């Protein structure tokens, strides 16, 4: 956390002083209320800002245009990992679909450079867990049951925690295997 930069005459810089005036008490050099706001904002920014390299919106693709999850995440029904589409796959549509929108232009720039987009991982399972998408999909379990309403999310986030209790709870409920070796090996 950065300390506000004091001005040379012992007062705050004009912008900071204005913010202080508005959100803090405006009297004391350091008031707790103002500090609290600064701390919260900074930490919220680090904690929740996804900072995906491309502002990809599931709400547009899956929500508005009703593109099936497995159209892009095609590994889900066949493999343990659902996978994210290759850049070539994105460009398959976006060569013609809205090619001039600024975000798409950035995707195209990656494509032209033949450089993969460095997506930030949202869902991470520990390395001793071997979740397999395909049996779940083949059983007809909807993606949303674990991933939440992704089709409403502009920026994807993990809606609720995916811990072992989530898995075993559901497995128990449905009479699926709760053998340790099902996931741990």
């Amino acid at each position: 956390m950065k300390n506000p930069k004091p001005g040379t005459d012992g007062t705050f810089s004009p912008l900071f002083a204005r913010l202080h005036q508005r959100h803090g008490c405006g009297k004391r050099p350091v008031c707790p209320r103002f500090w609290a706001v600064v701390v919260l904002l900074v930490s919220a920014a680090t904690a929740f800002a996804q900072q995906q390299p491309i502002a990809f919106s599931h709400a547009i693709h899956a929500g508005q245009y009703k593109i099936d999850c497995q159209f892009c995440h095609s590994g889900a029904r066949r493999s343990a990992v659902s996978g994210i589409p290759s850049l070539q796959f994105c460009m398959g549509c976006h060569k013609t679909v809205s090619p001039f929108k600024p975000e798409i232009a950035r995707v195209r720039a990656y494509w032209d450079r033949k450089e993969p987009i460095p997506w930030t991982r949202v869902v991470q399972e520990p390395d001793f867990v071997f979740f397999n998408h395909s049996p779940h999909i083949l059983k007809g379990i909807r993606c949303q049951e674990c991933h939440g309403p992704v089709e409403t999310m502009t920026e994807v986030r993990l809606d609720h925690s995916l811990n072992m209790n989530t898995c075993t709870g559901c497995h128990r409920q449905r009479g699926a295997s709760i053998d340790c070796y099902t996931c741990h090996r």
Partner: protein
Amino acid sequence: MNTKRRDFLKILGIGAAAGLAGCSTTPPDTLTEYVEAPEGMVRGHALWFRTTCRECPAGCGIQARVREGRVHKVEGNPEHPVNGGGLCARGQAAVQGLYNPDRLRSPLVRDGGQLKPATWDEALTRVKAALGNGRATIVTGAETGAIAELASKLGDHVQFEPLAYEALREANRLSFGTPAIPVLRFAEARTILLFGTDAIETFVSPAGYARGIAEARRAGGRMIYAGSRMSLTAARADQWIATRPGAEGALAMALLRHVLALGGSKQLTPDQRTKLAGWSRPYTAPQAEKLARELLAGPSIAVTGGAASCDENAVFTAVAVNLLNCATGAINTTVRFDRSSALEKTVPRAGLAAALEKNRTLIVAGANPAYHGFAASLRKAQFLVALASWPDETTELAHVVLPVHTPLESWGDYEPWTGVRSLMQPAMRPVFDTRDMGDILIELANAQPRTMREYLAARWKDDFTAALERGGAWSDVPDRKVTLSLAALPNPAPPETPTFRLETYPSLAHFDGRGANRPWLQELPDPVVQAVWDSWIEISPSDAARLGVATGDRVRVQSKHSALETSAYVYPGVEPGAVAMPLGQGHTAFGRYATGVGVNTAALLDHTGERWAGEAVEIRLVRKGGNLVLVPGHNYQEQREIARARVVPGPVEKRQERSISIYPERKYTGHRWAMVVDLDACNGCSACIAACYAENNVPVVGREEVRRGRHMSWIRVERFFGPGSEVAQPFRIDHVLTMCQQCDNAPCEPVCPAYAAVHNAEGLNAQVYNRCVGTRYCSNNCPYKQRRFNWYQAEFPEPLDWQLNPDVTARSKGVMEKCTFCIQRIVAGKDRARREGRAVADGDIVPACAQSCPTRAIIFGDLNDKNSRVARAVRDPRRYSILEELNTRPAVTYLERERRI
């Protein structure tokens, strides 16, 4: 600062909360996806590429399992005629050659006496300049096909294999007029007689021969081994005839005499018959008549190899064996000359020495003559270019070192036998800035087409696409018969009376030394001696007593060529007067895993000669106590009947009923996984151990940790010298393959305070790594001692970690681990069946050990499926469980070995 205490606490509280909110359980990770995904690739699914194993000249077909562009494991190609799906330990360790952390990463050029990194352009310019100075000599290993073609375009091509069976070829030239290495059809023989041949270890094509011998034995065949050392092959024979060293030929002649006397002369003219009878008259041997009858009774095969084929009597022995084969009718039936071996194009060592003496530009590609004694000759070369993947003794001397792809990254082809054309294709993109050896040769020879792939496509023409899929193209060859044309019997060498006769043998793990930089192979216990990370000298108990030497003592071995110091191993399986040493260790510059480990036994021999056995040596005790590391185990069974063998024909011991239990029987409603190990087929060749290391991310712990009893291998080949508490008379070795027995009443489970060892619904003793807190109670309570504890964080120096199987956890420090029956393969098999909407079929799930076994000794399957192979095998009358009396009810069943007399 005018902050009240209350405000201060508020700030502190908010700060802490915000700080915690900013932490997530895992650091943000980047997901990188392909820009253009390769066709047919599904993340999480393996792709298989069929290629050819080049770890030895046998040329087995392999298939590499590739996940997300990286090779994780190689397995035998089930369609390949050489090995038919099995693969030896050395083949398995090819991935550790690929990911070896010591690999050459850029070209090196010698500058002021030092090798310095250079660019490819710079290095190639220097090589081309040197090639402009006149005709070059190019030394490779056994090569056929494109590489041989390109090499001969570039200069005088010399093929050098340290083990190329010169005496055998010479004997065949004398006997049949063809200096060939014959095709041995063990599977068709019912009596197999080996004169020192290490057929299941390293001889010509061990994986294929092991398979053939197992087939012959399954059909009721019998194997007899005559030799002066109990090798692994000898241990596997039904009968070991301990011969005086160098006397194998005399035994063959004695057998010939009796075969002729019994009327065996199938392939001989009357003339020859008389001649042979005359030659064989002076020879006698006990039991010869019985053996002769046996040889005549059915199809038989007699083979010489190993020490018998490289001592002073080697040609005589090989000729005698040829005559015996003629008399029994084996020539042209079980011993065939219709396909010629790739080894036949190699030059003898004297030939290599002569080629190196020419003092001109020398290119050494994929061979290491410096290690085999030719360092002085290499130093004389005007300009030495080494094409190698790893730094070795030859690259040390080179003026320019060009790093080449390992076989798993290369294009190429190899024809181990005429008509068996095997293709090599890259299974992954190169790990480092290396180039295909073929591409370099094309560039240097200025050949067309310009890349190795195109060159091969042009060579293979229409077969190319199909061969990429199958791994090669195999065709029948015209029948070629040979006839005996021997004029005179070579004279046996005059008997020598050295203090000790040294027999060297290629190490099962390192072959002639090329496998020594693979950590799995260094840590693979020798199946006979059980030592790791070392070399040793085997001395018979009586000689050891005379010298005052005990196992582990340091001794000095002196021959007329050199002397070296090594550890003694007192071994009842070596004849008094003979000592035996493995080859393959003692590298001086072969990466971190091989350099300085053991001694280079070949230094004791004349490096330009073909005599690998029978060298006279003196042995002297240097000091008591040493550092030979043997894996923990016991030499004797102490009547516990762990490795059972029964004499056939003989009484069948009636099995006792299983002990009863007061607890209700466990019921398995779904699958019930079980394994059967057929000890009659298991050779103890340790291929399964290497396969298990590859599949299950088993760490290599190194010499010191093994000494502390912390060997991590999930499978062990236990070998015993006797069923009681002393050496069996006559001496014999019994092997048993042990892994977690997956007990029904598992002693490990109730003692775990963390529920990390739990019984699963399919009969497995699951070990849940993330629950394990490392109390090690389970290991203490395991009567089979099959649990391994991670005392340290396992190290996989980059890029060795690329090999790790992504389907298996890499266990961390403080966690117990053990065999899981390859649970990842079980789960994958069930998933595949579910996806295809069917039940799991027998044979769908094959653990890594069973897959690699060249003899198919390991059977795995579902006991609840009454028709599965495993369910049928457990009903075999030979069945038994280890330590049955403990009532652990293991899921691993053994089938007794049969010793046929």
